[in-house]
């Protein structure tokens, strides 16, 4: 008979066992519920409708049409000079043609109000990687980044997990539509200091996730001034910049820098990606645009851990440098998102629900605080559970976005067909009616 000898378990690192990946939070728990019982128009009409994933599916047809008509993007053809070089190409500078296409696409989105130099673009496999990379570069373990609340739940993981950097929230509330104020920034800075955390930067998302609103010019000026004053970095995650409902309402930090003659620019870094605006999260395309040479050089070297497939770069370089395509895409995408937004706002209003006035993004910021038993996080989560399990809608509770006011929820509207959205709105309406009756 074999003698059982207890084998010492071979250990893993703290990073491996840490919970900083955050996947046990409600934000992700809702996704699990969806995965187990996903709604389907015909085969599972009582399933959970996913409204917690900020994906843009409204403009796929435009992409499909382009690829059908331009076979050179997805192939190299016989004798094409491109393939050999492409397959071997693992230079962390990235394909020049792709960087040029990205730079020009970013300019187009900003209506030409800011210029981007392709040589300042560093490519990463997604904005997730870009944000983490910047954090590695700008801060040491134990340092802090200031981030306005509510913010994208993924930041807790992306900015903190492997980097060992802390997030100190800049509290914003509904009294002024969740805008960032100098007082709030200062308070956050002091709070970090009192915890003996060295603040290395402030990270804003503009347009904001989850608010679905652009940051106003005056606020951007104040944020930049604050960063200059404290001599820290400013990271502007502009991943939703192409998803504003009207082109004129989005102001990029790049424009602010331009008007200031690029003074103080070397502390500013912009993150962008094609995952939201172009609806291609599966392609894994992100960028860091930095005005700081040292950061550009370092980020480039570090991007070795997260390079974009050269095949993907080739495909997208073709697509994005086609001006006809990109201009039409940006315009049409905006119109469709705007239409969707109107649809959901109207639908929610009919159900008696108010939202924050938004002008961008793939979601709206819904106020369900009147429904809370008590103005607490627990009540919010209880309500969230009810909506998930009874109404069968997965929406994101504000607490997972670190919102200081309970009762707000982020509701995504671009990751489904119009019909499905109608059904979701119908379910909400019924739910609200029931609550009124009780």
């Amino acid at each position, binding site marked *: 008979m074999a003698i059982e000898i207890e*084998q010492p*378990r*071979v250990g*893993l*690192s703290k*990073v*491996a*066992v840490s919970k900083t*990946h955050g996947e046990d939070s409600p934000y992700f728990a809702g996704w699990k519920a969806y995965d187990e019982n996903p709604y389907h128009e015909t085969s599972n009409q009582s399933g959970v409708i996913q409204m917690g994933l900020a*994906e843009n599916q409204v403009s*796929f047809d435009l*992409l499909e049409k382009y*690829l*059908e008509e331009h076979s050179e993007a*997805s*192939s*190299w053809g016989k004798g094409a000079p491109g*393939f*050999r070089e*492409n*397959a*071997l*190409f693992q230079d962390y500078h990235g394909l020049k043609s792709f960087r040029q296409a990205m730079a020009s696409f970013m300019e187009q989105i900003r209506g030409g109000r800011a210029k981007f130099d392709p040589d300042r673009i560093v490519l990463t*496999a*997604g904005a997730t*990687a870009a944000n*983490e990379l910047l954090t*590695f*570069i*700008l801060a*040491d*373990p*134990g340092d802090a980044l200031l981030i306005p609340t509510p913010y994208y739940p993924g930041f807790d993981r*992306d900015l903190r997990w*492997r980097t060992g950097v802390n997030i100190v929230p800049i509290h914003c509330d509904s009294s002024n539509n969740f805008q960032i104020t100098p007082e709030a920034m200062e308070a956050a800075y002091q709070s970090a200091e009192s915890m003996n955390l*060295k603040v290395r930067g402030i990270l804003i998302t503009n347009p904001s996730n989850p608010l679905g609103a652009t940051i106003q010019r005056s606020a951007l000026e104040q944020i930049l001034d604050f960063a200059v004053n404290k*001599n820290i970095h400013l990271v502007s995650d502009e991943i939703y910049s192409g998803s504003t409902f009207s082109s004129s309402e989005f102001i990029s930090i790049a424009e602010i820098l331009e008007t200031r003659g690029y*003074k*103080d620019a*070397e502390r500013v870094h912009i993150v962008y990606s094609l995952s939201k605006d172009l*609806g*291609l999260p*599966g*392609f*894994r395309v992100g960028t860091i645009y930095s005005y*700081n*040479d*040292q*950061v550009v050089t*370092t980020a480039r*070297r*570090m991007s*070795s*851990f*997260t390079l*974009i*497939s050269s*095949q993907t770069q080739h*495909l997208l370089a073709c697509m994005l440098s086609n001006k006809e395509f990109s201009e039409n895409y940006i315009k049409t995408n905006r119109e469709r998102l705007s239409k969707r937004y109107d649809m959901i706002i109207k639908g929610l209003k009919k159900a008696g629900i108010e939202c924050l006035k938004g002008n961008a993004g793939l979601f709206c910021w819904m106020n369900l605080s009147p429904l809370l038993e008590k103005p607490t996080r627990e009540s919010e989560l209880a309500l969230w559970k009810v909506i998930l399990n009874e109404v069968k809608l997965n929406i994101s509770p504000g607490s997972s976005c670190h919102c200081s006011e309970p009762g707000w929820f982020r509701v995504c509207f671009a*990751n489904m067909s119009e019909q499905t959205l109608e059904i979701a709105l119908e379910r909400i309406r019924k739910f609200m009616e029931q609550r009124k009756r009780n």
Partner: protein
Amino acid sequence: MTQTRYYRTRSPEPEKEKTGGGGGTAMRVIVPLQGVVQGRGGLVLGSIIPCALFYFLQFYLKRNRDDPDDKNESNSTGQNPTTRSPSSEHLTELPGLTRSLSRALLSPRNSGPVSISARVSGIVKGGDSPYYMGLKRVKEDPYDELDNPNGVIQLGLAENKLSLDLVKDWLAENAREAILGNGKELSISGIAPYQPFDGLMEFKVAVAGFMSQVMENAVSFNPSQIVLTAGATPAIEILSFCLADTGNAFLVPTPYYPGFDRDVKWRTGVEIIHVPCRSADNFHLSIAALDRSFNQAKKRGLKVRGVIISNPSNPAGNLLNRETLYSLLDFAREKNIHIISNEILAGSTLGNEEFVSMAEIVDQEDTDRKRVHIVYGLSKDLSLPGFRVGVIYTFNEDVLAAARKLSRFSATSAPTQCLLISMLSDTKFVRTFITTNWERLQRMYVQLVAGLEKMGIKSIKSSGGFYCWADMSGFISSYSEKGEVELWDKLLNIGKVNVTPGSCCHCIEPGWFRFCFATLTEKDIPIVMERIQKVLKPVN
């Protein structure tokens, strides 16, 4: 926190930790007392003069700094400025000097330098190791038979161009449908949305099958144990993050792939302990040497978390035989540590020696599987480094869970996965590729070795990989790293040939060079030989 170093260090062990403050004080004490120690008296003057000079220097530098920022920098290291190479050790003891140096590197705008993290500020000065400098030179002045016959010939990059035409032809016929259709209707909605970050299951199945094929079906791989990453580079880094904490260490036999210094250490803060292999053993791994290194590390208070082996090895080209692999497993079990087996060249064997994967070894052993993790990728065996496909294959569910989550930072691209699913499922193509590629590698290897032999350059018999690991110690001016680098420099700048000096691979014996032959055509070989001959001046 380990500082990143792109300048080479030669030490077989990692640098000792130094506390910044302590170091500075030591400096101040040693210098003034030198006269006293040497018995030349002059305690007072001997103390005052150096001190005065020292403080003057500090003062001078102080006057040229911006205060708040510098205060930030000195606080920011907080951690010990560990593992600096000897040449820069004194920099940490003269904070003023460090600051003004780093400031010189900031962008010329010169308005209030905002600091970057200590963990990366070291590497900005670097980038000048021969490994990277050589690659840069080739990029600037690449050899081309027609357009640039005097350009630099690349023998420093382990790329396989020998069989690219096969892949190219396949793609020309099949790419379009492969990316979008896979036999179904052309649909972007299949590949555009969020996919599991660790890869499409279909692709994992295809990759598992391919891995099995290149390893001659000696072992089968379970797709559910695969995590796909954007290349083998992040695969190694992710495993480093999962298996070791900052300040822990891995044992790595030298000479090793220069990229490990970046992949294993840079952002993780994990150390590498060099375990020297010697020419007397043909650079084969010795378990005794591993054991010695492990014990030395223990004495120094360094916690070893695992061993990283490459099989076939880079640069020596050795295959680890069954016996060694079993011994390695015993060793790991005894010390309760992990084994990372980098098998990225498994499909690029030379000669007829049998390749044995670590997976095959643990096939029967249930209890030890949890400590074994395999790294693979399509960059070498399928010549597609640009497509960024790397594999972590592990038997440990916890590592699997963590690696899956971490793969979000380094995920493979969906359209590329779709393309490759088609390619890898085309078994006829894969079989033809593997066979043809093997033949071509053989041919090129034999020719290169013969050419070098004619010049009196002997090399280790390689059993795998794209390299010839050659002994040029007879041609260096001094039997030292310096002599070796001098020769490298001449080969690069006079001979216009980029090869990798053994010191980049931390080889303990000077004079060894790595020649990659898979980037060459047969026509290039005589030209390469000619150029090398031009440079060589036998020392004896």
